[in-house]
């Protein structure tokens, strides 16, 4: 692949920032090698503008693109351009995993399934969860809180639990009351934790089935939800596909944004 940028030894720094409902990921990338120079992650706070100003004061870059739900505010504070998370994920997925044609992103308030043309890296189609939070990371947080567990404990419990019953509610709020009544009926926390995972799994499989090619053998799982080991195992079994989880799955939005900030070959979008 032709490497754009200068060859004088002075390299440009590309920055990407992904502002989601739950967390902010910021990355600095080498403008020629696309190696990661710096990663920064923080919970999204109520005063997002202050967080962005802190980033502006702390880091230096030559080009920046913002993505995620806070992309427009970020653009106001940090400058640069914006792209949707869908474009960002498509770009980073194809850059790091050329053979991948299916990407699943499980974020805080959104779940996205992307179909990518593996020959040219273009997005073929995408599907997102409905506007409710039932198929998202937020669902796990709520369910963990209902069971008085943190997220890691919920995952560990689910790995020990049996798939003995289903949580039927598709709404996070209703699912919470369902879990409470299950608890009071004496069902183990482990089995409930497993059912919580199975419930989300059903939604992910349904979303993926809309876009996945029959000859797909593996898919890339990114976003904060990809850190959930129990879910990765269940998803792999349910789809009978290899699930690839990168080292920093929650940074793929920021990676894509950084790549798009430079003269990246797949920067095909005419940014508005």
């Amino acid at each position, binding site marked *: 692949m032709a490497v754009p940028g200068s060859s004088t030894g002075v390299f440009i720094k590309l920055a990407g920032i992904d502002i989601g409902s739950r967390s902010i990921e910021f990355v600095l990338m080498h403008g020629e090698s696309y190696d990661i120079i710096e990663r920064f992650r923080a919970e999204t706070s109520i005063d997002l503008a202050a967080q962005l100003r802190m980033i502006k004061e702390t880091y230096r870059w030559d080009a920046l693109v913002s993505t995620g739900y806070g992309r427009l505010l970020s653009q106001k504070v940090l400058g640069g351009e914006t*792209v949707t*998370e869908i*474009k960002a994920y498509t770009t980073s997925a194809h850059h790091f995993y050329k053979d991948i044609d299916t990407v699943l992103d499980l974020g805080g308030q*959104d779940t996205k399934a992307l179909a990518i043309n593996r020959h040219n890296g273009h*997005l073929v189609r*995408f599907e*997102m969860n*409905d*506007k409710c939070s039932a198929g998202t990371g937020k669902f796990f947080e709520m369910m963990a809180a209902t069971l008085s567990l943190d997220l890691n404990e919920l995952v560990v419990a689910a790995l020990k639990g049996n798939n003995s019953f289903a949580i039927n509610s598709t709404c996070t709020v209703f699912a919470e009351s369902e879990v409470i009544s299950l608890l009071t009926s004496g069902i183990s926390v482990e089995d409930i934790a497993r059912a919580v995972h199975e419930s989300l799994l059903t939604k992910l499989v349904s979303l993926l089935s809309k876009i996945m090619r029959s000859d797909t053998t593996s898919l890339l799982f990114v976003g904060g939800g990809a850190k959930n080991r129990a879910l990765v195992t269940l998803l792999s079994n349910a789809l009978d596909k290899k699930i690839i989880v990168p080292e920093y799955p929650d940074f793929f939005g920021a990676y894509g944004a950084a790549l798009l900030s430079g003269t990246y070959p797949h920067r095909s979008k005419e940014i*508005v």
Partner: protein
Amino acid sequence: MSQPTPLFTDEFAEFPLKRALAQVVKRREKGSKVVGVYCSYAPVELIWAMGGVPAVLCAFSNAPIAKAEETLPANLCPLIKSSFGFIELKTCPFFELTDAVAGETTCDGKKKMFELIEQHRPLYVMDLPQCPTNDGAVEYWKHSIAGFKNFLEATFHTTITDSALEESIKESNRKNALVEEIFIFGAEKPAVITWQEMYAVATYAMVSNGSEAIAKLREIIAILTERCDKGIIVSRENAKRVLITGSPVGGDVLKVLKIVDEEGAAIVGLDNCTGLKPYLGKIEEGSGDPLLAIAKRYLKIPCACMTPNTGRTSTLRKQVALLHPDLVLDLVLQSCHTYNVEAAKMESYIRNTLETNYLKVVTDFSTQDLGQLKTRIGAALEMG
């Protein structure tokens, strides 16, 4: 780039519904009876033939929905809730002007809602056959329209003659052809007409007729022709082009169309009932049976309530061939089951046969999903 001459130069520049209201008020002051209608299947030629004026009662405001939900279920179509809420609050200016109301059994929610408003106005519900190609469907629909004619005659102590109907049919044909001609300007690249202007034309034409309407529509065509001749454009040179299809739109759900604007794309066609759909298709003139001629034309309206709804695909095929959209945006109102289910067929047809990108969004009149809509629409426009 010179500024385009506006299509309407009255005081309602940004308010097409207020312009429509003023049209209805003007007619009423001249003695016309106002007949409220709820959908494109309402055969307005009968209302015009008796010297009346139709008023569209479909509402698109989020404001009265809380009131409506005191009576109606929350998971109902927002258009029905909004229309009903306005009537309950007595704040729908169109409904308040009506002397009678015509309902159509287009959708289940509307049809049962009519039962809840029947005490307010003389009401006639027309039974619409929903298998339009079945034997007897046209005759049955003609029968429903005849019932509506009898209702109008009895309510307003008038007679609607065949010759008045024939005249009304001719007027509709003339007017509808001009509206269609205006929408054809959507084919220009870059765009010379905005969706706001198309929406304004469709809204105006619904409540206007006669020589005044014809003159106004011709004036609009002249302005648009001038824009073409002088190269006056209303979008960026290489703006992505979007065709809107699906449920009716207006008011608060225009949020979706505004997002398309914000993303820098140009909406080049409105295929729905608040756009071109009610104006397509000619009514046979001088047939000797005007009610049958009206019935035949109305039953061809390609609404998702019909099965099979083959007219939808053929209309979209023509629209896509004419307008060359980069994206067909299927806007489905929450709980509009027929459009929502039909979307599966539309997606396959538009992607595979028309080879055009497709995006469905399901939404209501609230602002809760603006972020998600922006991401979805933005991503669909980034493609290709």
